[in-house]
Structures are given as C-alpha cells and as structure tokens.
C-alpha cells in the first residue's frame, strides 16, 4: 500500500510517498524542474497510476504532460494536448485544473484553463477538445480575470449523471445538466463585493467549490469574501461563514466519505492575504458549515504564508487525509482529518497544487 502526494510548485513537481499509512513520507523530485506546475492529478483508473501535470514551461508556453511511471519519465503530445481551435483566435495561457472523471468513464479527463475555457479528453489526457458551448456562452466576454488570470479553475463532473459544475474567477459557478451542451450560471446568494451590484446573476469570483460526500446537490464554495453552501446544486447559496475568523480564502475541501465534513483555510482579507494573526489554521466543519473548529496541531506557530486555490486536498483513505501547501514552500499532511498535521516538505518553491491518492 502506497500513498502518493503530488506537489506542484512554481518551479517544479515533487512526489512524496508513504508506505506506512501516511505516518511518514519520503520526498522525491524535483520533476519537471523549472516548470510551473499549476495543475496536477493522479489518475488511478488505469492499470498503472498516471500523473498528469499542467505546466508552464518557463518562457516556452503551457502544455499538459503525463507520467505513467511515477515521474521517472514524462511525455507530451507533440502538437500540444490543448490547442484552441483556429477560429477562436485564442491561445492557451495556463492549465489550472486537471480532473479525471469517474471509473465508469475511463479515459475521460477534464481540464480548466486560462483563458476561461473547459476542455474534455477521452484518451486519458493526451488530447483535449474545447467544450464549445461554454466558450460560446454569451456571458464569456464579460468574465473578468482575477489575480491569477481569467480561468475555469474548478471542474466537478457528477459520476451519477451528466451534470458538470465549473467555477471560474471571475464568472462564478456555471452548471451543465447535459454533459456540457448547455450552461447556466448558478450564483444566487453568492456575494460580489467588487462589483457595483452586490448580487449579480454571474461575475462572482468563486475561488473553489467542493462536493459534499452526501451527494452532488450539496456544494461548498470559498468565495472572494464569503463561504457558502448550496443544497440544491447551486440554485441558491447561503452563507456558512459564521464562526470563522475570516471569510476570505482560497481552498475549500470536502470529505469524500463523511457527509457534512469540509475544511477551509481562512485568510484575513483580499488586501491582506495572510493567515489571521500570522497563524496558519485550518477550520473544519462537521455539520455542513453550521459550526467550525480551528485545527492547528502540527501547523507552525508563526506563518504569514497563504494557501492558494488548489494547494489543499483530501485523499480517499480511511480516515480521510488532508494536505496543505503554502506559498512559502511548506507542505503539511494529516492522516486524521486535520486533527494533527506533520511537515512533509519545506523550503520548496511556492506550492500551487497538491493532490493525493492511494496507489
């Protein structure tokens, strides 16, 4: 039994392995040295695990690479896995999300990219097709770039239906009920404090959305100010930020196995993107956001580094493991749902993404 933790940073990818049920970790790498890795996934559906990485190759542009031997070798599609059709006049700027679909859809991998676009692969990530109806959505020209660029950064395919939920900065949450042919914004109740109208139909800067273990109708959203929950697949959202030290932040992670359990990593505010009181702290809810508990055991006493959008994740082991990477290059792992953390790595480049899987 091996647990694998993929750590994408501004300047390369590191892979940590644990052979003792996540008690200790051995760090390997760097892989893809000097390349920015803003998206990574571990696809465990095939006979061997595939690590997919969305890279920004220094001066030389973005692409998707993959390894079927845990980083020993890397491959890419010669002509580029993600290429905008010529008629769009657009060019890929960055891959922000790589999301394998369910085991019942082998080979299907979704990608969220900058500029705002959603892509679907049916060959395990070798090549992707632009999800044209979202690209052609009449709202798209008004979606604005956030600090990380204008991108679809969250892709949540429902394994039990044709529903696909995406989140973007900015733009907000959009949902398709038919596998990507039609899209509608679902942001009612999510604030947009940076817009003159406080509750627009769309345009919110939703930083991350996670699906509750109870099912795909219940989602959590960490917004650009505000933490929200929906119980009706995004048709209405209510604040669950009460009890948190701050409602700003980037990641939200839901337990894959325990309904009602989720984690956020608060930051003070958009103009002060640091942990409250200089103390890195994870907050966990066990009741779908009604109450929150601060978790700090094993995290540093003094830390002014943020955890960005995809730099937190859960694994699917029992009990659930939780992982954090900071912008000062530290990675923390918990094998007990956040009760205690241990340092996996430090002094790495700033961490952009972490993903964990049992392989």
């Amino acid at each position, binding site marked *: 039994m091996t647990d694998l933790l993929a750590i994408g940073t501004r300047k390369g990818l590191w892979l940590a392995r644990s052979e003792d049920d996540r008690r200790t970790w051995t760090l390997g790498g760097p892989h893809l040295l000097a390349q920015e890795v803003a998206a990574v996934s571990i696809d465990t559906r095939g006979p061997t695990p595939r690590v997919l990485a969305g890279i920004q190759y220094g001066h030389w*542009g973005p692409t998707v690479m993959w390894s079927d031997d845990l980083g020993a070798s890397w491959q*890419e599609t010669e002509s580029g896995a993600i290429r905008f059709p010529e008629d769009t006049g657009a060019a890929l700027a960055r891959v922000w999300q790589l999301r394998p679909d369910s085991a019942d859809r082998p080979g299907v991998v979704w990608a969220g990219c900058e500029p705002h676009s959603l892509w679907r692969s049916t060959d395990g990530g070798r090549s992707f097709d632009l999800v044209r109806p979202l690209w052609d959505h009449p709202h798209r020209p008004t979606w604005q770039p956030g600090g990380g660029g204008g991108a679809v950064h969250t892709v949540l395919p429902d394994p039990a239906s044709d529903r696909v939920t995406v989140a973007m900065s900015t733009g907000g949450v959009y949902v398709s009920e038919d596998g990507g042919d039609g899209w509608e914004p679902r942001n009612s109740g999510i604030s947009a404090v940076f817009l003159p109208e406080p509750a627009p139909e769309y345009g919110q800067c939703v930083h991350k959305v996670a699906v509750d273990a109870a099912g795909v109708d219940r989602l959590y959203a960490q917004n650009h100010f505000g933490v929200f929950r929906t119980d009706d697949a995004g048709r209405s959202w209510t604040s669950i930020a009460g009890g948190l030290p701050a409602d700003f932040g980037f990641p939200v992670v839901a337990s894959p196995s325990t309904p009602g359990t989720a984690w956020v990593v608060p930051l003070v505010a958009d103009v002060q993107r640091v942990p409250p009181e200089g103390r890195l702290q994870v907050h966990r809810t066990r009741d779908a956001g009604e109450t929150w508990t601060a978790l700090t055991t094993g995290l540093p006493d003094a830390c002014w580094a943020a955890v960005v959008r995809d730099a937190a994740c859960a694994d699917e082991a029992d009990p659930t493991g939780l992982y954090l990477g900071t912008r000062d290059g530290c990675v923390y792992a918990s094998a007990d749902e956040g009760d205690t953390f241990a340092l996996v790595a430090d002094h790495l480049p700033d961490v952009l993404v972490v993903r964990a899987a049992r392989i």
Partner: protein
Amino acid sequence: MSVEVVLPGVLADLAGGTKHLQVEPAGGTLADLLDTLAAVHPALARRIRDEAGAVRRFVNVYVDGDDVRYAGGLGTPVPDGAVVQVLPSVAGG
C-alpha cells in the same frame, strides 16, 4: 534555400539533441520558416509560437542579429543563408 536555426540549450532535446538546425523553409519569411519547423519538430515549434501563431511573449527571435519584433515580425524576410537565433528574454523570478 537553407537557413540555420540556432536554439538555446534548453530546447535542444526537442530538436533531436542539437542546438543548430539546418532548415529549408517553404517560403522567404519568418512565418514560413516556423511553419516548416513545426512540420518537422512540432513540440519545438510550440515553444516558440502559440497556437494562434504569435511568437511567445518571452521568446525573442533574431534574423541575422536583428530582433524581429522591431523588424517585420512574422513577416520578416529570411534570406538564403540567414542565421535565425531563438533566445529566452530576460524574464522570470
């Protein structure tokens, strides 16, 4: 017509392990040269231009020592015997 393309070391692997390529472009402009390069070494060509055809922002291309951004861009003439150098710009952190 033959043109020498000089690459930085970091791109050599994508050109078969060499930093010097002799290319016979289909036409007389930089765009023609890069199109020919893309047909033979597509992964290399993607490092220089994006899929919309633009030279990447932090990549500089010189034809016989002249920066094409201040010449004719992709329409810059590339004569027989020219040396086309690809260099990363000063950027990053």
